[in-house]
């Protein structure tokens, strides 16, 4: 396992990190004992950073992860959680809720501090509540030693482009923007470097788009994007390779992208994923896959408020009426 530094935080993170959302049975029913074993397997494989949120499985992911944390030495790994999102449409970024949220997370996670606290999916709320309530709350939490570093998370990159120049945070968590089909995160690197902001990348499989299986109905991607990604996965399968391997290798290979979160509740999966990062990438296959994905390169979807999705105008200002 390789390690890289997370911006000005100075934290050394493994290039592959563990996202605990799967532990909340977000994607399928899970066995908690298997989930806990998966966390141990991740740590044993050299992964030193774990991310979670109270939103995942509506606190279940934190609760299950907490059981594993109890069995681990807390200073041997880095842990981030989030605050502000608690349901599909349930957001609360008031200072009061941020404080209570962190208290609850610490309890569930059986720890007395978080290495990073991210404000979760902030593209859904007006910037004012973040600036007036949530961000000052994080400053306070740092003073109290309950969190070491602060961060924000969300999907549209425009969110970070607009907010980072006006706020102070130590890290951001971006997902679905540095993978085989979408490398738009690269456009954000100069801003992050200028500010020394740490970058956590997530969803190297674009939330399941890069798979031979049908994408879940809830997946917000358009049908063409879904179809082309599936085609790329089938091409890999025809060459005897799981596209997940290529995807994980690709997303973890960029020196300026310190760490990429993958999520699973199966020990074998995390062991495989970790092993892949040390193997050499099949550059010939990579080129073929990138060629297949070219027509949909950087194609994304709308998430949250219009001011963060201006680059993704709904088709011609709306559908037929």
């Amino acid at each position, binding site marked *: 396992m390789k390690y890289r530094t997370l911006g000005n935080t100075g934290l050394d993170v493994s290039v592959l990190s563990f996202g605990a959302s799967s532990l909340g049975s977000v994607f399928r029913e899970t066995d908690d004992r298997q989930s806990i074993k998966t966390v141990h397997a991740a740590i044993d494989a050299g992964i030193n950073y774990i991310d979670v949120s109270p939103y995942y499985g509506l606190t279940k992911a934190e609760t299950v992860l907490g059981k594993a944390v109890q069995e681990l030495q807390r200073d041997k790994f880095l842990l981030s959680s989030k605050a502000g999102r608690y349901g599909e449409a349930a957001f609360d970024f008031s200072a009061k809720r941020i404080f209570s949220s962190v208290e609850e997370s610490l309890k569930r996670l059986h720890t007395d501090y978080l290495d990073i606290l991210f404000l979760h999916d902030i593209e*859904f709320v007006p910037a004012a509540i973040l600036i007036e309530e949530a961000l000052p709350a994080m400053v306070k939490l740092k003073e109290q030693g309950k969190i070491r570093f602060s961060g924000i998370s969300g999907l549209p990159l425009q969110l970070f482009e607009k907010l980072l120049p006006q706020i102070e945070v130590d890290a951001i968590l971006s997902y679905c923007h540095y993978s085989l089909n979408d490398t738009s995160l690269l456009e954000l690197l100069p801003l992050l470097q200028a500010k020394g902001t740490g970058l956590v990348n997530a969803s190297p499989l674009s939330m399941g788009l890069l798979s031979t299986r049908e994408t879940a109905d809830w997946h917000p991607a358009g049908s063409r994007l879904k179809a082309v990604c599936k085609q790329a996965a089938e091409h890999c399968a025809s060459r005897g390779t799981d596209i997940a391997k290529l995807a994980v290798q690709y997303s973890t290979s960029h020196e300026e992208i310190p760490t990429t979160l993958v999520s699973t509740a199966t020990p074998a999966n995390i062991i495989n994923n970790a092993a892949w990062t040390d193997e050499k990438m099949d550059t010939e296959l990579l080129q073929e896959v990138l060629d297949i994905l070219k027509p949909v390169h950087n194609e994304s979807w709308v998430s949250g408020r219009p001011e963060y999705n201006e680059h993704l105008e709904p088709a011609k200002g709306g559908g037929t009426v």
Partner: protein
Amino acid sequence: MNAEEVCSRMRIDAHQHYWEIARGDYGWITPELPVLYRDFMPVDLAPLLQTHGFEGSIIVQAAPTVEETEFILSIAEQSPSVLGVVGWLDLFDPDHRRIYEKFRQHPKFKGFRIMIQDMPDAYRILEPGFVEALRRYAEDSVPVDLLLVSGQMDAVLKLLQQVPDLRGVIDHIGKPPIRDKEMEPWKQFMAEFARYPQMYCKLSGMVTEGDHNQWRKEDFLPYIRTVADLFGPQRVMFGSDWPVCLLAADYSEVMDILAGSLPEAWGEYERGRLFGENAKAFYKL
């Protein structure tokens, strides 16, 4: 169905549009849609209404602006065939009530439509301010058209759970993916919507959700039957969605598709409800 079948009941086309391109606020009507990129006014629709025995129609807003609603209200003033106008209202606008009261001064203003379809995040309709605003209109029994696409049905269902008394109508049967012949989860959501006794459904706008160039009549049958079964003859309305329908079919074809796909048990009474009486009741004409 043709003029010979006209009966004593009121026959109404419950959903159509007029527009004047030069007004400039129809974001979605672009030169890339040459069939629609021209003006459509009452003089264009009049012969079609006559041929099919309709006394008149409901004009529905086609642009998300107060000005466009005022424009169609002005058309309504001069056109006896316009029986009612469904305007546009932005419930996120703190001023919505004042605008509504102003619209209401006009005798042909019958209700408003919320355009969920173009919202980047449909779940915004669950914001407390939006829900509260809609509740007020529900208390006043104001007819509300809902324009959504099938991917937004979960958000709409959650909205109905919070505003169960909404006097609402789902436009264009909720825009299911007819061209992909998919029924689920659209069907399940429609069943949920139909449980709300005040909710209606417009059997309109279907041809543009099918394959524009190669649709077949039978493509629409399962969708029409599903809506007919779920909402029953008392809560469905025919709307031509003219001139938008012209992207895929002409007025007569739209009529043929629907009239030929109704449940066999639906006789003159049920068809009378569908082709006018329900619109009259819903919009309080």
